[in-house]
Structure formats: structure tokens, C-alpha cells
């Protein structure tokens, strides 16, 4: 490609070359301060260059990058490497000759200085008079090798009057007489791992760190140690007594803070910049502030459903309250809630039929999977129990087993009675799950028929079912069927709380089972997932998805601890008015609000169904 001399990329390269020229001179003059100054400008140049490059490429739609771009990058990197080497050698030299108490450190900067790269400016800051040039160091400085095709000479830093590399078609003469003033307050130290670090902070999180001054190459007692005033703006204070930084970081970002000190005993350093250190500090943003809340749009999603839902039933002897809230992960992306719930209480049959489900995050139609599974399962159980013979048979079986289990003389072999109840539950709850799966298969088939591509696993969902009834003579009978994560529990302060099943989990977090998996709807598997329980009474019957069980019950063991469920209920009762005088709208709002609780790392959809 041919480029005119007015080509912005070319111009920027030329500018940088001139700049590089003066920089190489400075190296041999061993003025590190100036080097830092210049290097900060290299970065600015690099940014400028990148701008040119991007604008240029975008404008010209170049197929291959401009050759200068590579050379520029290469030169910049080479330079930063060289600088580090020189820095190390210089430091060593100073320590060996004992010229200074401590190694030189880069002076602080406010980053606003822009240095004119052309070397003809005579007001250019130079070495101070009392810093000797060290011929030894000159010789040990490595050559600056330029990968540039046009590089004419390899620069050999032997003496001040050495040949200036022909990087610039118009080479400028090297200034001979150094001036005496050095601006020490401007340059920004280079990006290198030789900066001193302290642990990262996070906005809004308490920060407390005791400095080890030796880590900052400060060996010896110091006085008047302090940080620059910017520290306070960032939310921290420094206590010189115990050398501790503490406070609460207020702004995110990467900062360079100057730490000033003086030697105890009053030894003066010849170089003021020796009495400070540059401390790099990174502050993470507060994750809470980064979460977005984008409503999901009905137009964008098949099977769309509202981002939240709630329901309240006061017609039954025990109240039923449910709420389902889209999690922060989905809110951040503007995607749908994948959880759902369904319930019914039919006074003609006096059974509570409850379901919650959590659609698999990766399954694209799992929001429909959870919706369909819960409704299908509840309807199936409801319809079955409306058959008088099933209803009566089941009730009898429940009563019989209860009598045998709690008989005063435990001579009965409960095997048969148990089997009768189990078989009923197998047909009822197992059947519900089976039919729920069939409903998903049907939905999938219908979607395929409408020319969409889909598979059953696109509707993957967990499914937690419970049905409960109160029989006068015996108390409560509660049965559950559980596929996936989440939890079903009976909370009782008098009888002891109880987990109504075995959660599915694997070796790694997040492995669970779904209704759509083949292995799950098989006789042995179904029996494993069925549980039932007799109790005189309970405080609350609770179903929840893992959006709640994960944060509130951190481990599987905690799920099994009755005490933890008691505490959970008490915590919930503080936020939600469970009394009989509660206003129906208010109580749903309270529960939805509670579902927004903050728990780092737990941003899943949350659904809870309570009978209390």
C-alpha cells in the first residue's frame, strides 16, 4: 500500500520517531526521571496512534494492517523492556556506590503533562548538576534494537556525542549543556511490575491493610510518613502509628498513590524523590452497582411470561401464599423468569396440591417447561382425587397405615399398609410427573410442527410436588415428589422441622436432574423420589427453588437441620405479615420484596410457595 506523507498513521509514526530520538539521548544521560516522563508520553502516543490506526483502517477498510502499526507497537514494547533493564541497573549502581540511601523512584505525576517530542526545544529538563554521569553505566546499557525496516544504525550508547540513530529523516543535534531544573512532580511511572502493590479494595467493602515498609524497599525507621491527600478522596486513611490503611473505598479504578516519608534520625537524601514511593492500588466496583434490570419483552420471547408473579389463597383452612421473582442474572440480560409455581385447594376433596419448578437456564424454552410442568402436575393430581373411589381408597390407606405405625402395640407388620400408600402416591405423584413430561413432549412436538427447531431438553425443568390433607382423626398427611434442586420442607416448632426428600446434586455445583431426563421417570427412580409424612400439625409447609435454598441453606447438611428451617421461617416472618389480618396485596408485595434479598453469587430466579 502506498501512503502519502500526509497520511495520519505515517505522521504519527514520524512524530514518535522524533520522540524516540530524544528519549535515546536521555538514556545515556541517565536521567531516569525524564525517562519516566517520556515513557508516560509513549503511552499517550500509543493511544493516539491507536486512534489514528483505527480511524484510518475503518475509513480505508484496509485488508492488512499498516506496516507502521506493527513497528510502532514493537518499538514501544522494546522501549519499555529496555527501560526496565536500565532501571534495574541504575538501582543496583546506586546501591553499590551508596550515592543515595535508597533507590530512586519515579516522581509522581498528575498525568496532564504533554511533552513536545521534538528535541530542538532548549527548555527541555535535563540532569541536575549533582548527579554524575557514570561511564560504566553507559557501557552496560544494552543496545536499542529497532525492528524497523528503515532503521539505519543500531544505537550504541557509549558517550554523549555518539551518533544519533537515523530514525528521523531530519536528525536534530544533541543538546550539550544540561539545565539545572528538573520537574519532579509531573511524570507518571511506567507500567511495570516494579511498582509497589497493596491488596485490592472494593467499593463499599471495609478495607484494612497493615503496610510492611520493607516491601516498599524502605529499610529503616521512618518518620513523617503519610500518603498524598488523594487517599482521603478515595475513602481511606493512613495511621502512621501502626502503618495501617483503613476505611471504605469510595470509587472504583486503578490508582497510583504517593507515599512520602523521611528517615528517622534526620539523614537527608540528596534526591527528594528518594523519599517517596508509588503505590499502585486497584479498587473493584461494587458488584451491586453493576447489575442492570432490563424488563423482558413479550416481543422477544416465545412463551413469554411476566418477570414476577404471586398468588394468595385465603379460602382454605390454611393460607396459601406464593411468589416467583426473576433473578438478577436474567434481569441483567433482559431475559425471562424460568421459575414457576402452581397450586390448588379444592374444598370438595380437602387436599392442598402444590408445585414449584425451576427451568434449566441453558434450555431455551425452560420458562414454558416450568409453567407447563407445574400446571399439568397439579391438574393431574386434582383430577385424580376428584374420583371418589381414588379419594376414598387413598384416605383409607392413609388411616390404616397411620393406625399401624402409631399403634400402642407395635406388633403390626406395616409392609402391606405401607405398600398401599406408596402405590397410591406412585400413581398420583409419579403419574403427575409422567404426565407433566408428556405435556412437555407435546409442546415440543407442536413447536416443531410450526417449523421451529426444538428438542425436549429445551423445556428442561426441575419439579417439586407436594400434596397434603388434614384428616380429623389423625392430623396431617403430607406427600412429596422431588426432581432436581430446591427444597420441600415441613416447618414445625413443636414437632421438629423435616426435609421432605433428597435433593439431587452432583460432584460439582449446579449438576442436577430434570424432568425431561429419561432416567428420572422410571419406577425405581420414582419410588426413590416419593416421601410421605404424618404430623399432628405444622407451622408452615414450604416449597422453594434453588434460587432460595442455595443462599439460605449453603450446604446440603444445612437443609437437613431442623433448627435452620426454624430460623428461616423466623427470618421470613419478620418481613412478611403472616397474621390473619394481613392485607392480601400487601402480603404478596412483602414476599416479592423479600425475594430480592442480596446474596453474592446467588442470582438465580427465586420462587417460594407456603402453606401456613
Amino acid at each position: 500500500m502506498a501512503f502519502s506523507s500526509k497520511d495520519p498513521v505515517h505522521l504519527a509514526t514520524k512524530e514518535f520517531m522524533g520522540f524516540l530520538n530524544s528519549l535515546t539521548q536521555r538514556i545515556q544521560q541517565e536521567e531516569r526521571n525524564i525517562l519516566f516522563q517520556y515513557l508516560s508520553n509513549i503511552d499517550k502516543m500509543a493511544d493516539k496512534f491507536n486512534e489514528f490506526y483505527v480511524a484510518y483502517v475503518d475509513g480505508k477498510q484496509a485488508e492488512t494492517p499498516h506496516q507502521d502499526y506493527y513497528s510502532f507497537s514493537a518499538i514501544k514494547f522494546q522501549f519499555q523492556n529496555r527501560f526496565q533493564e536500565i532501571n534495574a541497573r541504575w538501582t543496583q549502581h546506586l546501591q553499590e556506590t551508596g550515592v543515595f540511601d535508597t533507590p530512586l523512584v519515579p516522581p509522581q505525576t498528575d498525568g496532564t503533562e504533554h511533552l513536545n517530542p521534538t528535541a530542538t526545544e532548549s527548555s527541555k529538563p535535563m540532569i541536575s548538576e549533582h548527579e554524575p554521569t557514570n561511564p560504566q553505566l553507559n557501557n552496560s546499557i544494552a543496545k536499542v534494537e529497532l525492528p524497523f525496516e528503515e532503521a539505519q544504525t543500531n544505537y550504541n550508547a557509549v558517550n554523549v556525542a555518539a551518533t544519533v540513530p537515523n530514525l528521523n529523516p531530519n536528525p536534530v543535534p544533541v543538546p550539550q549543556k544540561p539545565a539545572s531544573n528538573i520537574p519532579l512532580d509531573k511524570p507518571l511511572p511506567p507500567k511495570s511490575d516494579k511498582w509497589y502493590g497493596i491488596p485490592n479494595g472494593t467499593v463499599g467493602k471495609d478495607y484494612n491493610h497493615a503496610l510492611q515498609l520493607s516491601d516498599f524497599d524502605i529499610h529503616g525507621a521512618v518518620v513523617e510518613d503519610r500518603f498524598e491527600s488523594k487517599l482521603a478522596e478515595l475513602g481511606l486513611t493512613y495511621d502512621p502509628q501502626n502503618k495501617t490503611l483503613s476505611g471504605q473505598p469510595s470509587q472504583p479504578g486503578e490508582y497510583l498513590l504517593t507515599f512520602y516519608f523521611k528517615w528517622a534520625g534526620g539523614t537527608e537524601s540528596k534526591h527528594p524523590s528518594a523519599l517517596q514511593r508509588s503505590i499502585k492500588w486497584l479498587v473493584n466496583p461494587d458488584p451491586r452497582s453493576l447489575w442492570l434490570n432490563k424488563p423482558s419483552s413479550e416481543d422477544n420471547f416465545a412463551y413469554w411470561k411476566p418477570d414476577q408473579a404471586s398468588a394468595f389463597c385465603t379460602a382454605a383452612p390454611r393460607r396459601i401464599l406464593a411468589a416467583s421473582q426473576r433473578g438478577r442474572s436474567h434481569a441483567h440480560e433482559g431475559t425471562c423468569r424460568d421459575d414457576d409455581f402452581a397450586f390448588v385447594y379444592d374444598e370438595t376433596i380437602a387436599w392442598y396440591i402444590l408445585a414449584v419448578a425451576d427451568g434449566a437456564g441453558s434450555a431455551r424454552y425452560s420458562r414454558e417447561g416450568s409453567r407447563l410442568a407445574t400446571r399439568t402436575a397439579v391438574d393431574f393430581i386434582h383430577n385424580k382425587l376428584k374420583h371418589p373411589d381414588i379419594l376414598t381408597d387413598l384416605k383409607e390407606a392413609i388411616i390404616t397405615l397411620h393406625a399401624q405405625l402409631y399403634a400402642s402395640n407395635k406388633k403390626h407388620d406395616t409392609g402391606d399398609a405401607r405398600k398401599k400408600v406408596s402405590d397410591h402416591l406412585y400413581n398420583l405423584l409419579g403419574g403427575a410427573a409422567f404426565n407433566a413430561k408428556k405435556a412437555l413432549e407435546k409442546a415440543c412436538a407442536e413447536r416443531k410442527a410450526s417449523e421451529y427447531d426444538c428438542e425436549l431438553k429445551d423445556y428442561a425443568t426441575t419439579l417439586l410436588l407436594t400434596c397434603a390433607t388434614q384428616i380429623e382423626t389423625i392430623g396431617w398427611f403430607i406427600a412429596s415428589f422431588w426432581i432436581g434442586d430446591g427444597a420441600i420442607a415441613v416447618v414445625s416448632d413443636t414437632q421438629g422441622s423435616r426435609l421432605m426428600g433428597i435433593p439431587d446434586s452432583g460432584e460439582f455445583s449446579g449438576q442436577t436432574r430434570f424432568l425431561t431426563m429419561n432416567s428420572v421417570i422410571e419406577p425405581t427412580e420414582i419410588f426413590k423420589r416419593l416421601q410421605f409424612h404424618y404430623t399432628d400439625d405444622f407451622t408452615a409447609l414450604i416449597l422453594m427453588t434453588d434460587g432460595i435454598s442455595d443462599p439460605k441453606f449453603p450446604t446440603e447438611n444445612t437443609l437437613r437441620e431442623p433448627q435452620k428451617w426454624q430460623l428461616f421461617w423466623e427470618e421470613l416472618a419478620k418481613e412478611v405479615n403472616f397474621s390473619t389480618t394481613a392485607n392480601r396485596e400487601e402480603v404478596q408485595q412483602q414476599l416479592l420484596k423479600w425475594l430480592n434479598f442480596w446474596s453474592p453469587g446467588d442470582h438465580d430466579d427465586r420462587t417460594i410457595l407456603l402453606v401456613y
Partner: protein
Amino acid sequence: MRRLPVYLLLDTSGSMKGEPIEAVNVGLSSLLVGLRQDPSALESVAISLITFDREVQQVMPLTDLEAFQLPQIQTPDSGPTHLGQALQLLCTKVDREVRRNTDTSKGDWKPLLFIMTDGSPSDLQLYRECIPEIHKRNFAVVVACAAGPKAKTAILQELTPHVVSLDTMDSHTFKQFFKWVSDTVTSGNRSMGTTVSVELPPPPDVVHELSPV
């Protein structure tokens, strides 16, 4: 709290010396910047850096993103590419650092592995022996990046179906590659707990995805 462990294996053999490794440093820096802007990454991602040339070194143990301080990756003047040894070290580190689900504590999400190399393994036999060991560690995704013209993609395809290649090794390309790594990590983070494997987001222009063998 559940972490998402991310392991980065970086080639520091002789051929990476100079601009390539500098470009990698720039890329890593932008990877971190990208991840720090994602709220769920900030909470759950933990990163470890392992370099390999003649020596294999874990230059950064598995550290939470919040606390992570990026070291400057260096290369020796020359060195072979001991990728096999790197995989070996990786396995011991994963066993030690990644937490499993127990009754008393929630385990980490399945870890992610990204390998970047510009050549082929000098210790090919060890590399091949380590492949089943890597599979045993159950990574959610293993991405191998063949950077530059000398990288041998076929050998990487023995380890993982997800092999990508980069034409050049300059900072623009590496920046794009590491941005893609960042996107993979954040989308993988979001889908954790819901998938068996991580789906890779579409790669940028400079990152060429190879079709599985």
C-alpha cells in the same frame, strides 16, 4: 460461595519473546478489565495463571478476581514448549485448588481451561499421557488457542474439540482473543448450574474456530 475457577495456560517459550509476550500481557490486562465490569464475574470468577517453557510455573495461584493482581508475564531468552508438563502441573493444582461439593460446603462450578501456545509441545508423549487426566478433571470447557503460523492445531485437537487459531500475535489480535475469553467466562458463569457443558460465544474475526475433527 461458589467460585468459577478459570485456568490460563500460557506459552512462554523462546518464540514468544518480545512483542508476542508483550501482546499477551496487554491482552491479559484487558481480560481483567472486561471481567471486572461484569457483576457476576466480579463475585464468582477466580483465575490462575500457569506459564510453560522449559520450566512450568504457576505464576498466580487460583485467586478471586476481586483480589487478583496481574503479574507481568516474562519469557526466558529461549526455551522449549513443555505443554505436557504444564498439563501435569495443572492437574495437581486443580485437585488442590478447586473445591468439590461436600455435605458441609458448596463446591465450585466446573472449572474453565484456556491454553495459548504458538508452537507444538516439546514433550509430546507426556502431553498425550496427560490428555485423559485433563478429561478426568471435568472442565466445563477446554479451549486451546494456536497462536501464530507455527502452531500445530492437530495436536491441540487431540486434547479438545474447541481449538481456535490466531493468524498473528500482535496486541490487537491478543486483545480480541482475550476479550473472547472474557465473554466465554461471563456467559459460562451465567449458565453455570444449568448446563452440562459451556457453549462458546461466537469468536471475533481474528480468532478462527476450527471445526471439530
